[in-house]
């Protein structure tokens, strides 16, 4: 989409499109189009949604106590042994997640740029939006918040960066989590970031059906309920953990 980057020089009255060129293989050809980028955003979004759901359910073992959560961490590490080497499943998941995040963010950035050019410099002096909701309007912001949060979350509990989580110790999963969630600043970051994720999912989990063209009178009315349910489940389910530590139910 280099075409919309030079808008003002077009002759007015008889706009002509550049010649459509189709080259390369199916996927590069598809990715060059905005719709192709939207498909990839939807698919990478589905991958990330599946991960965030499994991640949350697994981590609910926090409520079962120290032994349960730490055993779960070791189980994940050894998942698939001896067929898959130790850490194999974890690293395979990480690679998939890095790819999904990369695609989601790069496509979003390219589409945002394209849309800014297509909207142009002329702004309405007055504009009353009739349909768009808060979640839709803030997708880019909630996306950036969640992206930054992921870096914090990794520094806090995966990498154990000293100034983020000073009590962090390798393999002491339960203690690390409780130490983080007991810190009000850290707990606040988790709560706010997951509220942002909930908003992002409220629009994204519905929007993906439209982008993929999954539209049918048979299930259309379920799409909004699916998005609401998924967004609330993830936001409430994740926020419950730092809240439980803060109020003293866990830890």
């Amino acid at each position, binding site marked *: 989409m280099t075409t919309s980057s030079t808008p003002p020089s077009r002759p007015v009255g008889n706009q002509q499109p550049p010649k*459509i060129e189709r080259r390369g293989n199916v996927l590069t050809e598809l990715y060059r189009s905005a719709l192709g980028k939207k498909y990839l955003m939807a698919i990478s979004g589905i991958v990330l949604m599946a991960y965030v759901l499994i991640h949350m359910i697994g981590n609910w073992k926090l409520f079962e106590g120290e032994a349960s959560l730490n055993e779960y961490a070791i189980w994940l590490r050894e998942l698939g042994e001896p067929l898959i080497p130790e850490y194999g499943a974890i690293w395979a998941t990480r690679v998939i997640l890095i790819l999904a995040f990369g695609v989601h963010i790069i496509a979003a950035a390219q589409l945002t740029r394209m849309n800014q*050019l*297509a*909207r142009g410099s002329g702004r*309405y002096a007055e504009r009353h939006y009739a*349909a768009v909701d808060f979640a839709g309007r803030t997708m880019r912001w909630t996306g950036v918040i969640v992206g930054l949060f992921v870096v914090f979350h990794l520094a806090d509990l995966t990498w154990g960066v000293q100034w983020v989580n000073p009590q962090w110790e390798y393999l002491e999963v339960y203690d690390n989590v409780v130490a983080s969630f007991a810190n009000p600043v850290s707990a606040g970051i988790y709560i706010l970031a997951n509220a942002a994720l909930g908003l992002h999912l409220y629009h994204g989990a*519905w929007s993906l059906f439209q982008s993929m063209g999954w539209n049918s009178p048979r299930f259309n009315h379920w799409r909004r309920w699916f998005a609401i349910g998924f967004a609330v489940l993830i936001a409430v389910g994740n926020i419950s953990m730092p809240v439980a530590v803060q109020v003293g139910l866990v830890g």
Partner: protein
Amino acid sequence: MDLTLRIWRQPRHDTPGDFVSYQVTGVPEEASFLEMLDLLNEQLSERGEEPVVFESDCREGICGTCGLMIDGRPHGPWGNTATCQLHMRAYADGDEITIEPWRATGFPVIKDLAVDRSAFDRIIEAGGYISTPTGAAPDANLIPVDKATADRAFEAAACIGCGACVAACPNGAAQLFAGAKVAQLNMLPQGQPERYQRAANVVDTMEAFFGSCTNHGECQAACPKDISIDFIAWLNRDYRKAKLSGRQAG
């Protein structure tokens, strides 16, 4: 009634524009919005001032020529109406109304309130038709179409190409227009032979002028013909199939 109008005036497409305030007096409430602008232009002409350029043709809501951003709402405050069907009984004496042209890179301003919508013509040329052999007209109902499909295709075919969807879109996207134009043919038997080629050509042409959809639904809310964003999903599906299955030609 007497009104204050804040109207965008722009002498040429490549010169900057600005708002100018005008008083228009003696507007009857039975007048349409466009007749009110006619009255303003008469009063401007009598004073020797340059009339405001705006577009209109049928003035009965079926041609899609008129289209103004009125107080921040495409086609004004009434739902499912084109600007020409908006009547002055929507306003009261002394109201101030802000009138702007559609604003999008794909719709450059020609002058004042008139914008160049020829990009829509390019989209239609890319696939908004069916190739038919000429000859005698076929018998009616020779190709059976079930009622539900016919009704749905007709909903898409109600698009008058006014451009309110692009004007309303925060991304300057034309996906509702393109979706309607593709769906009205791709839903029917007559549209099947060129179905995937049509979807690919329309989308690739559309993206040369307009932005991409973020599923906000502003287009659907602005559409004077109440066309559903379901047709955007239709377009997305046919484009995906066209590209992934290699069913497009050329």
